[in-house]
């Protein structure tokens, strides 16, 4: 049914079609947890069938489809199937609270949801804008043992396909933590994704012999590299699922036994592998490139990793979800012994242009601190249905060029590389994920007995960032920490649950009667 699906060059799914022609029998994707795998031609055909199933529940080009399933071989076929149907995929964490995922699907009004029976039940328990979820996605179609489609609507007509599914059409929406408690949807088109993917082709020379780790979940933007750079070049995507992804022992096993040649993960994951992965004595001989991103890699840990993995080249990739990867840095083969600071985030990538600006938007002198702003092909289209937020995050200069404001404070070093210094707002990185402290506060306020909540983040040697919640409490008894953590776990993804809770009589206030976060941070550091 080629007329029913996209054949446009330049879209992400065309990478799969091309590779399926060129390397039909090579392994495209494999899952060490289940020992399942698909060749390129099998993945291409399976995703064609999934595209057809989506059209049968009414999905049309230009629409959105939710993806709420664990990471498996078949999930990759759904990612491509959704795009082949001309739609954009909206992946969520299958382990996150169902209410948060439901809010996301409602926010971008997905036409259908790819899910499984258990998750579909959890998603269906609740109301949307006052009406039952069933009225939006009430009909279930069982596709296989593991997958059900939620969606209502007859088969979509096939006219106008190309108009709504060009290279500038939406490819995916990734939701990131929002400061007011509501996640916001970062929209990327096929073109903005390809700007990064195609840059990688020229810079890193991937080949069909490469075997890529796919550690990042699909709702995390590191997955864009794993999936599309591998598929474009005929390499193998080695899936690391939700369970193995958290086990340093299994990660070390996969990296060696599955002969990974290109590894990509957050520094937190690499650090856990060094400390708990029993790396000694394993053979990592196939590894040729190690990429890390998402947060700062403390130099001591990077040094230790380079002592274990002595052969591969190491790269720091930087970029908020809004820009894909917009700067890169290759770690020198030998790190100077006297280096105490983390490695730089480097210089522009993906064809992007960067500037360092002061609060008025004027470029600062080289070497001075300022906010990093980015323009170019890999920058997002905007936030889904939030033009106000998109405008806030955009700096329009005198020439009319739009720059995405990263919120990251950097300076350019003597070698022309950008160095990350910190944030200008209340966002922190935890295990590589963005966490808006305001979103944690919103979740705490959902507790009946919490009167006031203030969440602060402080540096921590072991975990990188320590998140402490200060609370004032209306209940009679002192709140149980266990109950508070349970409350958070019901409302937030696990990586957002605070490490510590402190109950106080009153939160300290500034002279303008705002919560004095500086004093709270100082309290944490002192204790």
């Amino acid at each position, binding site marked *: 049914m080629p007329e029913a699906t996209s054949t446009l060059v330049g879209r992400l799914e065309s990478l799969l079609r091309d590779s399926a022609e060129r390397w039909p029998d090579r392994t495209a994707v494999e899952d060490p947890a289940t020992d399942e795998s698909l060749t390129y031609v099998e993945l291409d055909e399976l995703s064609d069938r999934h595209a057809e199933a989506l059209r049968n529940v009414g999905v049309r080009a230009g629409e959105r489809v939710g993806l709420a399933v664990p990471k498996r071989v078949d999930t990759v076929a759904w990612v491509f199937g959704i795009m082949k149907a001309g739609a954009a995929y909206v992946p969520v964490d299958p382990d996150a609270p169902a209410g948060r995922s439901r809010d996301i699907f409602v926010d971008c009004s997905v036409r259908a949801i790819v899910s499984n029976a258990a998750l579909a039940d959890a998603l269906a328990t609740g109301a949307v804008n006052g009406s039952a979820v069933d009225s939006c996605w009430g009909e279930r179609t069982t596709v296989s043992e593991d997958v059900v489609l939620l969606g209502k609507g007859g088969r979509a007509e096939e006219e106008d396909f190309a108009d709504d599914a060009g290279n500038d059409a939406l490819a995916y929406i990734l939701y990131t933590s929002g400061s007011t408690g509501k996640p916001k949807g970062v929209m990327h088109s096929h073109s903005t994704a390809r700007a990064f993917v195609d840059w990688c082709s020229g810079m890193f020379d991937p080949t069909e012999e490469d075997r890529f780790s796919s550690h990042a979940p699909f709702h995390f933007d590191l997955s864009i590299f794993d999936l599309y750079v591998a598929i474009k070049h005929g390499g193998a995507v080695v899936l690391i699922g939700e*369970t*193995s992804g*958290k*086990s*340093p*022992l*299994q990660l070390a*096993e996969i990296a060696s036994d599955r002969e990974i040649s290109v590894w990509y993960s957050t520094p*937190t994951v690499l650090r*856990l592998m060094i400390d*708990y992965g029993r790396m000694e004595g394993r053979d990592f001989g196939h590894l040729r490139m190690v990429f890390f991103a998402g947060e700062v890699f403390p130099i001591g840990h990077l040094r230790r990793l380079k002592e274990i993995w002595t052969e591969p080249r190491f790269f720091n990739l930087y970029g908020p979800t809004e820009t894909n990867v917009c700067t890169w840095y290759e770690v020198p083969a030998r790190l100077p012994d006297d280096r105490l600071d983390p490695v730089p985030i480097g210089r522009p990538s993906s064809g992007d242009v960067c500037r360092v600006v002061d609060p008025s938007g004027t470029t600062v002198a080289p070497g001075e601190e300022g906010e990093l702003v980015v323009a170019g092909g890999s920058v997002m289209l905007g936030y889904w249905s939030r033009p106000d937020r998109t405008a806030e995050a955009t700096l329009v200069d005198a020439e009319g060029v739009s720059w995405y404001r990263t919120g990251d404070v950097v300076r350019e070093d003597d070698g022309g590389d950008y160095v990350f210094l910190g944030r200008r707002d209340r966002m922190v990185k935890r*295990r590589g994920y963005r966490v808006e402290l305001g979103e944690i506060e919103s979740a705490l306020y959902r507790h009946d007995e919490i009167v006031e909540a203030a969440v602060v983040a402080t540096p921590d040697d072991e*975990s990188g960032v320590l998140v402490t919640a200060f609370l004032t409490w209306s209940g009679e008894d*002192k709140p*149980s*920490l*266990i*109950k508070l*953590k*349970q409350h*958070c*776990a019901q409302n937030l993804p*696990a*990586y957002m*649950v605070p490490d*510590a809770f402190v109950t106080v009589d009153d939160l300290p206030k500034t002279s303008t009667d705002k919560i004095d976060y500086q004093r709270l941070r100082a309290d944490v550091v002192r204790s």
Partner: protein
Amino acid sequence: MSEIQSTVKSYVLEEFLPGESPDAMDNSTPLISSGILDSLSTIKLVSFLEEQFNVQFEAHEISRENLDTLDLIAATVESKRHG
């Protein structure tokens, strides 16, 4: 409460829930599914169990099914000691 449960309970309270009343936690309080232990703290707990009770965990055994409550932890450790 057996020796394993009480040793692990003291460790979890001290390490991950400082200040919490011991009464708030019993042998069937969920630890992982409730958000008390995240992935990093689960790994730390396993290291503690390995050292304290002189057992070894295989990668696939580090799971909610084996570690979610004090009772499950004790059963897992017991089976390793006698297995």
